[in-house]
């Protein structure tokens, strides 16, 4: 019969989380005799730090079919060790972090873009149908929600729109004054500001403000409702979340963005006038006459049409990101960021496309 070889390991001193225990793995790896005796007689204070060592030791002795004898181990440590091995990891539960190669990642990215595009088209379709139901008086939504959203997206945005529009008008005027004065044509600053603000900047700046302010708010609100299963609750009651939650927001923004844009145009012209009056030798009357002669109704309506398009795009971007948000706090943050970014990108792209169309139609 083979004689049993015993290795005695003594635990000495404190084994606490505060202290790093060096060489514990080497000690465990060096144990190869058929019996390992762990003597805890000289053990001081201990906590989970000791248990991690015991777990590693137990795994080592089990793996190598060694016998582990625990001598004078505190009762609490015994119990924790037993508890640590009480429930085994379910088969297939553990995840190995496998590195994905370039082709895999590219393919995955492409498939994700296709799925995303499909989801955008599907969402736009659902909103279009919902707007159709709204005009037929069959949409299931709360009127009070619509009025509250109109107030939030319209009247409550006045201060920020006022400030930005006034400053954008003033900035345009500053740039114009410096250049045009060189040719003695300072008065044409009024034309530059009026056409620039009314055709382009009024709508685009209002759009950017609304994408950051309202689009983000829509995404955060709907995203949080998704996390709290409020959207699921509506669905199970047979209420279409698009009608009930998205429609009032889209309608409110389609109505309010053009109105805010008209207001921004006015403030932008005032900003330009303020700078021109301060720097140029012109009267307010001269400036206003020049402004009125430089802007046509076509300019006004082309700017207004852009504002309506931006309103639709921001509302759809914000609501889609919110309604398709995941079910965690991080997902809500991601949805909000995505709503702002996609809203602004959509505005800029739409502006470029509309300008090409206007040029082709000679507008």
């Amino acid at each position, binding site marked *: 019969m083979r004689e049993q070889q015993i290795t005695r390991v003594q635990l000495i001193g404190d084994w606490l*989380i*505060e202290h*790093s*225990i060096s060489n514990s793995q080497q000690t465990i790896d060096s144990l190869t005799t058929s019996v390992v005796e762990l003597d805890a007689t000289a053990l001081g204070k201990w*906590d*989970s*730090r000791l*248990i*991690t060592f015991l*777990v*590693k030791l137990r795994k080592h002795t089990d793996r190598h079919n060694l016998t582990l004898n625990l001598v004078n181990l505190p*009762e*609490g*440590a015994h*119990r*924790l060790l037993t*508890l*640590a*091995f*009480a*429930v*085994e*990891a*379910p088969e297939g*539960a*553990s*995840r190995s*972090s496998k590195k994905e190669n370039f082709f895999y990642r590219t393919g995955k990215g492409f498939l994700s873009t296709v799925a995303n595009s499909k989801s955008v088209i599907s969402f736009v379709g659902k909103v279009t149908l919902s707007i159709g139901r709204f005009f037929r008086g069959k949409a299931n939504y709360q009127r009070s929600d619509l009025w509250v959203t109109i107030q939030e997206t319209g009247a409550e945005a006045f201060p920020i729109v006022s400030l930005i529009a006034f400053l954008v008008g003033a900035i345009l005027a500053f740039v114009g004054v410096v250049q045009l004065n060189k040719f003695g044509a300072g008065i044409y600053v009024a034309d530059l500001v009026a056409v620039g603000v009314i055709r382009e900047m009024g709508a685009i700046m209002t759009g950017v403000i609304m994408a950051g302010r309202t689009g983000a708010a829509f995404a955060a609100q709907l995203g949080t409702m998704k996390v709290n299963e409020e959207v699921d609750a509506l669905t199970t009651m047979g209420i279409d979340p698009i009608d009930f939650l998205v429609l009032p927001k889209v309608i409110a923004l389609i109505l309010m963005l053009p109105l805010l844009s008209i207001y921004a145009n006015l403030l932008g012209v005032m900003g330009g006038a303020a700078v021109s009056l301060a720097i140029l030798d012109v009267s307010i009357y001269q400036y206003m006459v020049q402004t009125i002669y430089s802007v046509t109704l076509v300019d006004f309506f082309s700017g207004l049409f852009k504002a309506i398009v931006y309103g639709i795009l921001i509302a759809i971007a914000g609501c889609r990101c919110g309604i398709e948000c*995941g*079910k*965690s*706090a*991080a*997902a809500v943050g991601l949805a909000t960021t995505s709503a702002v970014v996609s809203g602004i990108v959509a505005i800029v792209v739409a502006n470029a496309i509309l300008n090409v169309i206007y040029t082709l139609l000679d507008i």
Partner: protein
Amino acid sequence: MSDTHISVDNLTMAYGDYIIQRNLNFTINRSDIFVIIGGSGCGKSTLLKIMIGLKSPATGSINYQGDSFWDATDFQRDHLRRKFGVLFQSGALWSSMTLKENVALALKQYTDLSKNEISELCSLKLALVGLAGFEDYYPNEISGGMKKRAGLARAIAMDPEYLFFDEPSAGLDPLSSRLLDDLILELRDSLGATVIIVTHELASIFTIANNSVFLDPETKTMLANDDPKYLRDHCDNFKVRNFLQRGEAKQ
């Protein structure tokens, strides 16, 4: 011999001018499993919040091993908080982190352990609560009961002296609830922690608790403070006995 670990002295809790409970006085011994009992709206969760430092009391004090928590400096209070482990009702796991990262955060903040050592400790804590193998899962990928257990693993990450539980059995099936009770008992026995629990679960209370306080929303004060099994069978106050006997006590 009793070993007072926590004492609550003349504590009054209020939201603004609205008083929730007044003149609470009780002590909790080392390794007690202490439950805060009472009807809805009596201030159980508020008391727990005051004990863990999330809300300040209107008057009175809470002393941990003789040191007043609310009279201490911010530095002392933060130091004391490291001895706390809290399991919130929803688990309150950080959704952007994996279970392992949730458990590891306190260890990274407050110890000088290496990455490997922290990883081993996290795996141990998750194994202790029966979640071995789920280290790399995110909270939204696991069930409600598993979230509770993961929250418990995070609460015991630093081997706390004081363990607080807010409605640990809420939303769990009876079997999971029983398993959680066993786990609480096991951790108390092995870690030697003092456990404070807010719960409505009578079965759970009688299984694990050895000390309790009963808060009354009508008189706005505590009506009893003793072992809940004793209070159920022998308390002089009918309201307390009736509550603990599910409304079936005899006058």
